[in-house]
């Protein structure tokens, strides 16, 4: 899809990225191509408007937030290594790798995946999903389907369910707990509890 084929040499810090994210070289090439494709002005960096040009993303109700999650606070641009590192969140966890001690550092560990999702809710990054933040997400997702009152009740209910320390907001631990519960019971895989499955996509070779 890119105008020119990427080669490994074109990719800055390729080896380091591979080591860091556990992507294969083929993956990396593919992502680099995609990166260049998105980077219409060949600046070597992506801006939010580049993402906005993806048509499917424009339809996504929480697309804006996801784009936002790619950019670290205060930054307006995104270089290729950051791009890859963020996408690495969504690599399926390798069952063999997950047992070794380096797992904590990997971006696709369960905690990191959850953290990413959590940040989508937690827009002000205070470590908590407040009622207002939850409402925003709900509103975006449900659009016109429900009235405001319903949204509020849903948000209310969700916070109640999750809120263990009664601070009227969902902290990351609470978030993890609730989602953890969910996947333990929904996927019925007590052993292989997998957030990973819900938060992973297949990267084609």
């Amino acid at each position: 899809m890119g105008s020119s084929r990427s080669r490994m040499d074109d990719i800055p810090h390729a080896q380091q990225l591979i080591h860091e994210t556990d992507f294969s070289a083929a993956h990396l090439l593919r992502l680099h191509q995609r990166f260049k494709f998105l980077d219409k002005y060949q600046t070597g960096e992506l801006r939010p408007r580049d993402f906005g040009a993806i048509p499917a993303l424009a339809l996504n109700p929480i697309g804006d937030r996801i784009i936002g999650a790619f950019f670290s606070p205060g930054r307006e641009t995104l270089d290729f290594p950051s791009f890859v590192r963020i996408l690495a969140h969504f690599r399926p966890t390798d069952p063999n790798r997950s047992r070794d001690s380096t797992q904590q550092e990997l971006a696709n560990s369960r905690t990191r995946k959850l953290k990413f999702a959590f940040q989508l809710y937690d827009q002000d990054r205070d470590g908590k999903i407040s009622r207002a933040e939850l409402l925003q997400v709900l509103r975006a997702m449900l659009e016109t389907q429900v009235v405001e009152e319903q949204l509020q009740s849903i948000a209310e209910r969700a916070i109640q369910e999750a809120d263990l320390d009664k601070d009227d907001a969902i902290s990351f631990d609470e978030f993890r707990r609730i989602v953890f519960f969910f996947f333990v019971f929904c996927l019925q895989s007590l052993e292989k509890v997998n957030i990973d499955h819900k938060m992973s996509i297949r990267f084609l070779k």
Partner: protein
Amino acid sequence: MQFPLLLLLFSAAADLSGTADLRETGLSIPASAPPLLLCPQPGAPRDLAPPGLASARSAVGEPEEAQNVGHHGGGFRVVQWEWTYVQTPYIIAMWLLVASVAKILFHFSQHFTTVVPESCMLILLGLVLGGVVLVANKKQLYQLDPALFFLFLLPTIVGDAGYFMSARLFFDNLGAILTYAVVGTLWNAFCCGFSLYAAKLLQVIDERVQADLMDFLLFGALISAVDPVAVLAVFEEVHVNDTLFIIVFGESLVNDAVTVVGVENVETADYFKGVASFFIVSIGGTLVGVVFAVILGFITRFTKKVRIIEPLFVFLLVYLAYLTAELFSLSAILSMTFCGIGANKYVEANISQKSRTTVKYTMKTLASIAETIIFIFLGISAVDKSKWAWDTGLVSCTLVFIFVFRAVGVIGQTWVLNRFRLIPLDKIDQVVMSYGGLRGAVAFALVVLLDGKRVKAKDYFVATTIVVVFFTVMFQGLTIKPLVKWLKVPRSSSRKPTINEEIHERAFDHILTAVEDIAGLQGYHHWRDKWEQFDKNYLSKLLLRKSVYRKSELWEAYQKINIRDAISVIDQGGNVLTSARLSLPSMASRASFPEFTNVTNYLRENGSGVCLDLQVIDNVPGAKVEEDTETHHVLAENLYKPRRRYQSHYSRHFMSLGEKERQDREVFQRNMKSRMETFKSTRYKRHKKERSLKKRQGLDRDKPRRNVSWQDTDPVFVSVESDEEKDEHSDAEKEEDVGITFVARRTETPKPRPKSVPPAVGDSHSPTAAPPSPTNGGSLLPWKGSVSSPPPCVSVEATKIIPVDLQQAWNQSISSLESVSSPPTHTEPVHPRVSALSRLGVPRPISYSPPGSVGGCTSSIGSQVVQSSLCFPEKKKEQEMEEEQEKEEEAELQPLLAPPTSLTKPPPPPGSAPSSGKRRKPSVYLRSLVTTPSTGSNEPHSRDPTQL
């Protein structure tokens, strides 16, 4: 039990000997069959069926003919023995009865049924019955008739399975399902066929089995398909996890196409045509199913006025999908499955709650009985000397081959699939999948259908198939449970989702889609998102009612969860009135709560569009207060007399409300009204300066009763019989299923204060309405409150919560109230219709009558007063149900949170309420239950269909 069974068997035997398979044999009716001796025209049954009549049809087409024959016997008889006239339906009914009674008997022993699957028992029963018939007749008269099986028994099971199958789960695993169904079945078929042929060449199989390669391939094709009936029967009791189940079961459904093509085309040996035919059969079948799904969805859009036949449409169209596919020799199972999967979402949304329940129960009943009959007949069919062309070599080879090749096939395919699957199937899954490859009635019916002239070894094949089916269903079915336990296969758990899960699952879907888009991958999520867009933009618009289209699934889920919690709390507490220590159903306690699934289901089936709102309070009233409360509660309950006059009403199109139901409804309406009242009075406190003088009308009638039994979770439509509503009777009927819809209109409240409409929870002897009262004190000491509380005034302008479809009536009543200071009229059912609306259904702006006026009222008022006091226990319970601390709302709701004693005093000054509210860490009562009104409501603007 033995005797009726025998009788049945003999009579049935007589029937079939004349009409079904054995008629060519010229077998005369056995003299030993008792019913026949009494039969006026002993020879008649044999003449009944025209030669070409398929035996399955005999069940349907026969009565008329039988009638003709039955009546030509001359002479006048006072009592005629019209056996021929009724025999077919009679015998069918008797079979159903036997099957059902057998089920009951099996389930007498709890322990037994946990060890031995029902299917095994049914087959054994069939063997016994078959043996009895054989001994009596020297000839087996029954077998599982293929036409009967394919036209009636199988569709009921497949229809049920398809309709209730989780579409998401199915499509999430579609790749695996298709692979196993197509590649796996082909692999099994060819391997079995070739291996058996090899065995034959090696003379392991006796020479008497005259079969060539084609015959063996044919046999391989029909014996290799995993059978949906058997899989359902066995896996239902094993409860493996959903993914595993859907893969095995999906495979058993989808491989039908392979089997159909295989069995029909193997003999032609034209593989190219075979492949083409496979695609036509499978894709064609799917398309037929989809087309019928669309038709079904579309039709149910317009059944608003004829709710009563909604379920019929579902059954008919799903069945027609099957028959149509069968008509064109397409894969009927595929067609039906896809029709069920496709239509489910739209149909369930379109039809009423009661229809949903009806569909569910009818389908389950039919499927269950069909399954029972299939297994019994399998057993019976096995006891047939004419079929037992036994060849040990063939049987044992087949058993070994299907088992080995199944295992090899599964492992090989899984290895490939796991390279693509996000969630790999591990070894344990593979073992269960191999072991769960059960063969069943489909294979048997197919093998019976074989043409004995072309396939010389048909008898051997039939015998072998029976053995294989028995082996897989009985032996594997019996052992799979211990195996699953031993392997620690993850089981499915029946945990109900929480609202968070609903939210996050949706969010995660969006996230993954977005990431796939960003990464430029067109993966699974990408396509699913595309589909969802399409569904939302076009399909749902076409197939869903406008009123439904606007509803949000998340919101529905929210309501369900709320109701479930309410139920579980009540379950937990037993008689909640006495247990003040009710704890919040936290997630942990929820999981430890086995029964609550049932209750939730029950409630759900009972239909409730009403949202329960549950609250928790921290303060525990003293024992004394509790006691008093309970006493009053009981008192009030016993004193309750519905005062509504009932109108007799008959309609073929609507269910009339049962007495009980009406009573409940009335109670609920009162409850609602009282809640409105309290709500309004709350508002009043906030604005009392301006309002207090405006409205002070006789409100003595409005001491509410809150005594509501939990059946009231039935959505309430208010007062069918009211004058205003009368012309909208049908709409009201419809609303009944949609649930009550309330709109909170606020004029001066700074913030939306949605209010929930908790249906009463609890059981009939523990009324559980939980009206938010302005003061908890009112609820705690209601009897005091009712006597001494000064009449709070309510302004018309203050917040009103009105059932949407009653808004018109509401306005009318308001205007009438404003113009005339209406005297209390509520005590007698003088104008039942009016009273139904004005007193019960529609909250009006009202003020309390002074205590004195209450006292001065008739005795019925007195009872009402007592009843109103009852609100308290329920309220308390409700409060306990759910903890809600909302700081920001607290301030707003402070009037609601007044301390328990507030009702006994004049309304506290505005300042005092807040402080007390904070002290108590109050819960918030007013939750929204603001659902979109369904069609036919009187509020046009809310029904605006254009929502995109």
